């Protein structure tokens, strides 16, 4: 009886070994078929779709590689940290914000990049270090887009002769009544509160480093607190505006654009005091050789210009900006919808990554305490 059991155990073990061996052979076979599999982390939604069409599909066609989209950019820094601590980094390329990239770079989680060596020149031969916009190339970071945090409104909720146009109007409950949807974070809200209170946009971050400045921003936010609905997911503000649950909503400009052209929503963007920032690629440690060719391809002039056909985020290269044309589906001119379009850009404020790297923890805690009051 015992003998039989042992025998059965051995057979079972053999079967398992065979299965494992078989599985690995199959895995090898698929790898040989499709050159390699790239795990690319991004933001999901309309943004990932624009990357899929502008970068991933042409690349897969060209090389036979397979690209897996992972929608984890919201937690990219935590993910990189835990993967590196566990000693098993499965992500090959990550789309993240420059502030996060700065921290990841300081922690040695991502590869330093030699931009002129790794990236493509502009068609006229300008090296990348001169072709990318200011701040687009960090030690470990290469930007692909310029996007913007704006406040949008539903035009149907205000009389035709009294449409809001400035950030101060968002804080003006008397003339522009209605609920406001704002991001449940201090970022952008504090800047806007100060600008609406009359602070010059050059001085915003200097003021926010002082106790009086912070208090002034919170005092300003206090004036509209009762009328605010706080959102947390990028998909919420267009929805809230469309349902007329709110009159104003802060949002990423691409999402509002998408709702305006694809769903024909009566939205308008207040470009006054837009807070713009960059977004782009970082390479987890040890993955540079694997993704080098893809990175070269996905950040060249043509690809960045292509992406602007699908979403209204400005390309991070000067040479691509000139090539921005029309929306791929509706054929409308993309230029006036770009954050970098000169009339939109006049009063723009660049998000100060250093400031937020320093004060985000403290101000988030203070913001939460303020919300709970």
């Amino acid at each position, binding site marked *: 009886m015992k003998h039989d059991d042992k025998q059965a155990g051995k057979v079972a073990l053999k079967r398992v070994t065979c299965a494992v061996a078989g599985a690995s052979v199959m895995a090898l076979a698929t790898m040989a078929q499709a050159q390699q599999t790239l795990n690319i982390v991004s933001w999901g939604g309309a943004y990932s779709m624009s990357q899929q069409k502008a970068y991933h599909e042409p690349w897969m066609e060209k090389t036979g590689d397979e690209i897996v989209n992972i929608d984890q950019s919201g937690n990219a820094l*935590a993910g990189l940290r835990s993967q590196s601590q566990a000693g098993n980094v499965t992500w090959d390329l990550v789309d993240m914000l420059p502030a996060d990239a700065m921290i990841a770079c300081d922690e040695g989680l991502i590869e330093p990049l030699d931009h002129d060596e790794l990236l493509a020149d502009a068609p006229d031969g300008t090296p990348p270090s001169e072709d990318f916009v200011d701040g687009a190339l960090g030690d470990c970071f290469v930007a692909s887009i310029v996007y913007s945090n704006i406040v949008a409104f539903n035009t149907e909720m205000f009389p035709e002769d009294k449409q809001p146009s400035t950030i101060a109007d968002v804080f003006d409950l008397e003339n522009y009544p209605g609920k406001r949807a704002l991001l449940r974070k201090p970022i952008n809200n504090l800047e806007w509160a100060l600008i609406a209170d009359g602070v010059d946009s050059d001085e915003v971050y200097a003021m926010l480093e002082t106790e009086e400045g912070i208090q002034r921003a919170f005092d300003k936010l206090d004036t509209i607190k009762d009328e605010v609905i706080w959102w947390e997911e990028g998909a919420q503000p267009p929805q809230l505006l469309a349902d007329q649950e709110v009159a104003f909503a802060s949002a990423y400009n691409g999402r509002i654009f998408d709702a305006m052209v694809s769903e024909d929503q009566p939205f308008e963007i207040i470009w006054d005091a837009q807070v713009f920032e960059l977004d782009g690629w970082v390479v987890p440690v040890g993955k540079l050789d694997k993704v080098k060719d893809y990175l070269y391809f996905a950040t060249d002039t043509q690809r960045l210009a292509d992406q602007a056909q699908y979403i209204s985020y400005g390309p991070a290269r000067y040479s691509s900006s000139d090539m921005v044309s029309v929306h791929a589906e509706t054929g409308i001119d993309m230029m006036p919808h770009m954050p970098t379009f000169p009339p939109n850009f006049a009063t723009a404020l660049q998000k100060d990554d250093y400031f937020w790297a320093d004060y985000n923890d403290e101000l988030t805690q203070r913001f939460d*305490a303020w919300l709970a009051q």
Partner: protein
Amino acid sequence: MSESPASPLTTADGVPLKVSLRRAVRRSKVKAFLLVSPLLLFLGVAFVMPIVEMLWRSVENAEVSTYLPRTVEALEGWDGGSLPEEPAFAALAEDLRTGQEARNLGLLSSRLNYEKSGMRSAISRTARGVRNLEPPFRESLVEAHRAWGELDTWRLIQREARPYTISYYLAAVDRRLSLDGEIVKVPDHLEVHVGLFWRTFWMSAVITGLTLVLGYPIAFLLASLPLRHSNLLMILVLLPFWTSLLVRTTTWIAILQSQGVLNDLMVTLGVIADEARWQMIHNKTGTIVAMTHILLPFMILPLYSVMKTIPPSYMRAARSLGGKPFLSFRRVYFPLTVPGIAAGGILVFILSIGYYITPALVGGQSGRFITNYIAYHMQTSLNWGLAAAIASILLFVVIVFYMVFNRLIGVDKVKLG
């Protein structure tokens, strides 16, 4: 019967019976241990180790001594009265240069930034230009970033050089160490955790109370109805129990939201005006309703298993001895169900203070639990030390509750089904 009492009993092959028995017992003990060893291993890896690691993380403080070793050494014996001398500045410059080359200053700057906002950029900005700094470093560092000219910065480095810290625990209860080493409260506008702890506890208590009030009659029905009916009822209790947590939570959103089923019904019936729809979700009410529903089976099942064992003849006896229905219930039936109440109560309470998805989805701003803050510190602020400290405090509270419960009721009396 024929053997004399003097000669010891032996087995067939002449081994004394005692020895043989001992062997047999040992063998079966070893076997039993081997059988449970995979489970023990699993418990060790999946349960004990993470808890030990969590406790370790909540006090661990290696960053400063690891990444600024020379500075820490140079600050030994410094009295903290005025800015340190040149050697300390030179050591800092050297440490920053080494760190910049190895690209490992990130954890250090995060750690110091928890204690003093602004340290992150002070370190990363200084480190970026550290190669070009010229002695005397006391002047050039202060010029590179004003933080190095502040006494507080140096005192902080000296204090955080210790290998262990209680500052995560202090932060978890809205306290911090002042630079004189005293424990002080953080300013009011930074207070968040203590309020959330209290809210988590009292809302869990309310939820436990509600599940008891709702669950007790159901369990009684289950135990007293004839089998045919009680089986049907049991299925009605178990079906939601087997349904995914997310499904049940989102169902409550569909029912309670302002454009939801219940509000629509009330407006149609004319009970409330269309503009004055009830706000029943994304606040405390939402959390309490959804969690009471989700945790109800955990109260009903232990109650049922206890009630099932109470013979109906006890109540009949009480009634025949002249007890009014309520008196017989209170004096006879109810005391017998106390182990079930205790088991259900402790189960629901412990489960609910650890709940996190449901409050996150239906709790809005006012219905959040401290657990949502643990998730925030794990995923977003990446302050894992603080997350570990908050989680450890919750663990201690659960242990204390369990001990009190054990003292009052006795764990051996508990029946879970």
